[in-house]
């Protein structure tokens, strides 16, 4: 279907995914549509794992607590949280969104590239827990409708009142005539928006996609690909597996401390994280902005004035919102203060950059909290 829309495709984690849709303006137009109005992404490549009660109540919660870093016990039913699964070394298996579907019923949304590994990891490490693990990845088509007008688009397609759904909360309701659809106020763009999970058969998926496009026409909705998904998440400093987080990087280095609840009790990776905390950081994730001409790209080296290696770029790109060249990099803590000058090696030449505050882009907070906003 995406090819019919003129999409350029790429293989991503075994999935044929649209990178961008040149016929509707391409990457930059997609990026700006999401920041300014609304865009829609097919993110069906994301994986879904449900962990629920087997025999005794509480088994699923205990299992989720054991394999993830955030405190799932704090979640209300209908609430989601950003979290991560760690190896015993305190480094990342993957980052996940944990949704609490019921008292002892959870949905973990995982990355495409790590799907196989993740599901095996979850099965192995919950085997001794009293819970049921199901992989539902192939059951859902996941669409992300993102941007300040996403709410207006989706509201036309559902009888659920979307306004009371707060950021990182979700509900179930009728969407495009389909019953019991999971509607979550989540996304990977740094913008307001929703993700919906519809049955994955081709006819249903295409029908929902078409209805979203029609509902969004008055707001200038366009289909968006992996290219703009990447620039949007980079501006918002959201981590990408294999870049900012990986099996070699721990939670503290990635700066994800606030999602890691050491006080909740034991979980996989916790003891190594305690040791790592005592030992102190040797590298930390910082935002860079290029001062000299040049674009820092993934895996380029960072060097000091003398040209000695000090770190590495994890993600880098021109920022369509800021019209600057931005990047995320791992640098020694001594080089991480805002305003510090560092250099990026671009094709054997040093280009000057400086450490800046992150996120690079933060959406303006509405004057009222979302549950009251829009009540005109």
């Amino acid at each position, binding site marked *: 279907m995406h090819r019919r829309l003129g999409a350029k495709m790429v293989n991503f984690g075994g999935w044929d995914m649209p990178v961008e849709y040149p016929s509707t303006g391409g*990457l930059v137009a997609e990026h700006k549509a999401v920041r300014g109005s609304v865009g829609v992404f097919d993110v069906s490549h994301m994986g879904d794992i449900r962990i629920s009660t087997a025999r005794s109540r509480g088994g699923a919660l205990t299992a989720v607590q054991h394999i993830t870093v955030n405190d799932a016990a704090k979640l209300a039913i209908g609430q989601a949280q950003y979290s991560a699964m760690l190896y015993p070394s305190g480094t990342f298996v993957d980052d996940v969104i944990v949704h609490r579907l019921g008292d002892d019923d959870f949905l973990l949304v995982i990355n495409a590239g790590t799907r196989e590994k993740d599901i095996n990891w979850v099965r192995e490490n919950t085997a001794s827990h009293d819970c049921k693990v199901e992989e539902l990845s192939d059951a859902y088509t996941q669409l992300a409708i993102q941007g300040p007008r996403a709410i207006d688009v989706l509201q036309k397609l559902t009888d659920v009142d979307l306004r009371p759904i707060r950021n990182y909360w979700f509900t179930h309701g009728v969407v495009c005539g389909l019953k019991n659809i999971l509607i979550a106020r989540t996304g990977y763009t740094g913008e307001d928006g929703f993700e919906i999970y519809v049955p994955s058969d081709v006819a249903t998926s295409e029908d929902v996609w078409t209805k979203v496009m029609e509902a969004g026409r008055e707001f200038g909705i366009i289909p968006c690909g992996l290219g703009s998904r990447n620039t949007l998440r980079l501006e918002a400093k959201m981590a990408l597996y294999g870049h900012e987080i990986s099996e070699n990087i721990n939670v503290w280095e990635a700066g994800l401390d606030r999602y890691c609840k050491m006080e909740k009790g034991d979980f996989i990776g916790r003891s190594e994280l305690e040791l790592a905390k005592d030992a102190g950081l040797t590298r930390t994730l910082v935002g860079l902005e290029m001062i000299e001409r040049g*674009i820092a790209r993934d895996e380029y080296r960072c060097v000091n004035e003398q040209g000695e290696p000090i770190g590495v770029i994890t993600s880098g790109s021109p920022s369509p919102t800021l019209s600057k060249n931005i990047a995320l990099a791992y640098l020694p803590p001594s080089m991480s203060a805002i305003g510090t000058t560092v250099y990026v090696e671009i094709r054997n030449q040093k280009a000057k950059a400086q450490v800046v505050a992150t996120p690079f882009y933060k959406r303006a907070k509405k004057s009222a909290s979302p549950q009251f906003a829009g009540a005109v």
Partner: protein
Amino acid sequence: MTYPQSYRYTKQHEWIDAKDGVGTIGITDYAQHELGDVVFVELPKPGAKVQVGKSFGNVESVKAVSEIYAPVSGEVMEANADLEATPEKLNSDPHKSAWLIRVKLADPSELNQLMDAKSYEAFISDKNKEASA
């Protein structure tokens, strides 16, 4: 967009317009389309030598860096300075005003190895078929 009949083309999607021992070199409409929004162009300085089949510069779009390969060997006479301030011209006018460099040809017979417009169009039409297969 049409591919000028008088130009010669490479499989890496560069074109060359050669007259009187001087070749103007650029990237094709197909290439700019594949790249997407061009934001940065890095070119050699006058006097630099380029070698057939070897990279002589880079074009960057938002999503990626692509090397540009010389269709012929020669010495750079001029680089298109306009592209520093307005790299997006490579998207809008790749076959004309957004040329990259002019070179003094070292060996004009190298031109015989390149495709004419008709062969190049057949070449990219095969590529498009592959992509939509």
